[in-house]
């Protein structure tokens, strides 16, 4: 099917220059949606981004199993177009007073981006209110209302603080959207229903399809680790470390070392401090050999998360290693080379956790902390019960890591059966559901 025959669906991303794109949860979902479009052959996703972000987004999306121009396009106003639109938007009383950029992007999008409907990627993106086509609001979660203590002061909780303002903006956008998409039933129930009183008839629970990193590491056969595939993955990691001038890792024998990987940003709910404590217990108390590689950046000295304190207080410098902003292929190589992936997060907006699926796609087992996201996954796959741990129990996690190290192959076999069942859900189905939500079609 040519681009002309594809149904064009817009994806709205109104964050400006300097904002984070790579490895953000929602941007990864956008990537998977695009691969779903490629798989299904029915839709083309048009991303509207602000000036300055286009190159970063295109570079990331070009790594996907999708064709630019057929499955996806990135629309970015020129600086002149953006400035002209900002000037025009400032005269519009409906534009947000503090930042005319989103409204300017809407003006550009209305004039230039040929879509039938939009998916607005965050519920507080008020620039979308200026869009002329209908839109569905993607609602990842209302996490600060379950975990408010990670943010403090008037900046966050004052009358005009970040979260009350976010709540007001989200309420505004949700009211205008044709539907609201969540990744999970538990977010629909906990947040949309309770905080925003959205009726069930407007909610679309669209679980993600399990991501598959296997195409990024073609040297992995049958989703299983071998000594050769591990060595190949290790070569990629060393090459990356050399490019990035990470002295400790550029000649590091990844394939000869037992290590676990954690792939999430360091945020209050992600509980990376517990993962680090478990490593500390294995190395210092149990006198084992284990490392933790994190894709999170380590914010030394910060107190809103426990991770920096744990690493500093216990001087875990070379056993807890930060490898932030990994390109997709290097991320896949890290996961394949790892003994296991550990996901200690208290909460995720999806059913399960992306690292769980990603790890199994390249033959690595996962340990998951309990939480509503895992409870929802267990309802579909109760066989995963033995692979869970209490998110407050560092000793329990340490023991589980030691167990999985001794019985890695068994764990992979058991978890892979669940993964293969879950994998029957395709990204083309997810893309179809998102597009239908945006177009205001009734859910099937």
């Amino acid at each position, binding site marked *: 099917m040519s681009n002309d025959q594809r149904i064009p669906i817009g994806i709205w991303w109104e964050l400006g220059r300097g904002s984070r794109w790579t490895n953000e949860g929602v941007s990864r979902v956008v990537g998977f949606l695009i691969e779903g479009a490629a798989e299904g052959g029915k839709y083309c996703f048009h991303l509207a981004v602000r000036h300055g972000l286009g190159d970063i987004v295109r570079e990331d999306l070009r790594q996907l199993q999708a064709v630019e121009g057929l499955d996806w396009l990135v629309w970015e106003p020129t600086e002149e177009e953006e400035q002209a639109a900002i000037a025009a938007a400032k005269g519009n009383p409906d534009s947000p007073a503090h930042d005319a950029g989103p409204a300017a992007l809407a003006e550009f999008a209305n004039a230039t981006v040929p879509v039938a409907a939009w998916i607005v990627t965050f519920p507080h993106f008020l620039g979308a209110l200026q869009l002329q086509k209908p839109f569905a609001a993607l609602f990842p979660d209302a996490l600060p209302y379950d975990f408010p203590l990670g943010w403090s002061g008037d900046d966050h*909780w004052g009358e005009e603080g970040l*979260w009350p303002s976010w709540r007001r903006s989200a309420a505004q956008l949700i009211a205008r959207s044709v539907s609201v998409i969540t990744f999970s039933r538990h977010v629909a129930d906990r947040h949309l229903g309770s905080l925003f009183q959205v009726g069930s008839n407007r909610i679309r629970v669209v679980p993600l399809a399990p991501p598959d990193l296997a195409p990024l590491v073609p040297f992995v056969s049958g989703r299983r680790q071998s000594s050769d595939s591990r060595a190949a993955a290790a070569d990629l990691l060393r090459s990356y470390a050399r490019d990035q001038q990470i002295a400790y890792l550029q000649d590091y024998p990844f394939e000869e070392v037992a290590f676990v990987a954690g792939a999430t940003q360091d945020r209050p709910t992600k509980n990376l401090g517990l993962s680090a404590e478990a490593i500390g217990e294995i190395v210092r108390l149990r006198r084992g050999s284990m490392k933790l590689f994190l894709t999170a950046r380590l914010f030394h000295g910060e107190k809103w998360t426990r991770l920096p304190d744990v690493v500093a207080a216990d001087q875990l410098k070379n056993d807890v290693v930060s490898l932030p902003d990994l390109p997709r292929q290097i991320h896949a190589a890290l996961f394949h080379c790892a003994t296991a992936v550990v996901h200690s997060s208290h909460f995720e907006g999806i059913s399960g956790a992306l690292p769980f699926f990603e790890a199994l796609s390249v033959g690595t087992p996962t340990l998951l902390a309990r939480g509503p996201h895992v409870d929802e996954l267990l309802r579909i796959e109760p066989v995963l019960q033995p692979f869970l741990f209490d998110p407050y*129990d560092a000793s329990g996690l340490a023991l589980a890591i030691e167990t999985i190290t001794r019985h890695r192959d068994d764990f992979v076999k058991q978890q892979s059966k669940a993964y293969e069942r879950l994998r029957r859900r395709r990204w083309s189905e997810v893309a179809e559901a998102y597009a239908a939500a945006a177009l205001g079609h009734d859910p099937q």
Partner: protein
Amino acid sequence: MSGPIGILLPREPDQETLRRARELAGLVLEASAASGTIRTVAIGLPETPGKSWRRTEQQLRHGQGGVVVRRLQWEPVSVSHAQRMYPNAITNFDLDGIETVQVPRDWGWNFQDCDALIMFADTGLGAPLTLKPTAFYIPDLAMRVVPRAYASSIDDAYWERQTDCFRLWRQAQLWTSDPHTVEDLVSYAGVRNGRIRLAPNLSDADIPVVSAAPKRQNILAWIVKPSALHDLEIAAHALQIYISEGGQLAPVLVVDSVNEFDPATENSVLADLPRHYAEFLYSLPIEQAQSDAELVRFLKRSAVAWSSQLAGGEGAAALLAGRCGTPFVGADYAINRHVVTAAKLTAQLYGLGEPLAIVEALHQIEQAVARRPRVKFSPLSSRAERVRQTKSLLDSLLEPGREQ
């Protein structure tokens, strides 16, 4: 599986508090099992300077599957912010006149994943906003009798925090093992009778087993804290007289941390003592007992255990001495009398406020010990009764309309 029951400890938990927490955790687990409910217990343990959090965590968990310990930090939050953070849950609370609440933080769900919370009293904390069905466990209201153990003066900020604390108590359930504390809760804290329930005495707990019993020595184990609650000036004066009169028991200060009686450590209670008594206290040998196991080992090789505490405490020191087979000396007030009688302890209680009463008691217990009495001990209640009582309390907390 049901949600955990949270047990929140005060900001600076001492060995007695940790003992209570372990006992309560065990009772909750047994009571839940008796109900056919699978539960875990989440103990919130603050980080205390100079103490190993991980070590205390292991002590709390030792031998108790189903117990997980979480780091606990109390976050002061303005009421206006809290109303935005918890728009639904907070409407159940009357916070009128309170400016700041204290919210428990555990770097995760902040105990909001618990079905209910049991919080050990900490009146100097302020208004604890727990947002879940909560019972406050109150061993005593000793500050009514010995206020200088809690506040330096009538103008101390402590009093405002205490009032805020009482305001939240008045909206929750209160548990206490001491019938005399019930009167204080009504009269002093302003809590209605209907909210107060009698609980098992958590200090009446099994002690760690000592496999090789140490030989008893002529030690007077003075279980003491650097607090006005332990009447240090009177006690030190009495001890000096006892020694000068030829008393043979050798006093040893038994403390949670040696820093507590270190002259280099700032402590206003010790600094306010007449220099003569302070120097006397600093001259005494110190035994640091960083766990119940260490404390029990020391008491088992002591001739006598002494607590100079003036009020409250649930009779904890007397009960511990009894379980260690060690005769006890302590102040004569209601809960101590009750515990000594009910547990059939070998003990001498002395009148309050008079050093010579302490001197007499020490001489008498020394003579009694010389006769090598068979030291008896009888638990205040059976394990089955304690579990039954805990189950009833939990039922009332979790389903307020259903009480047994």
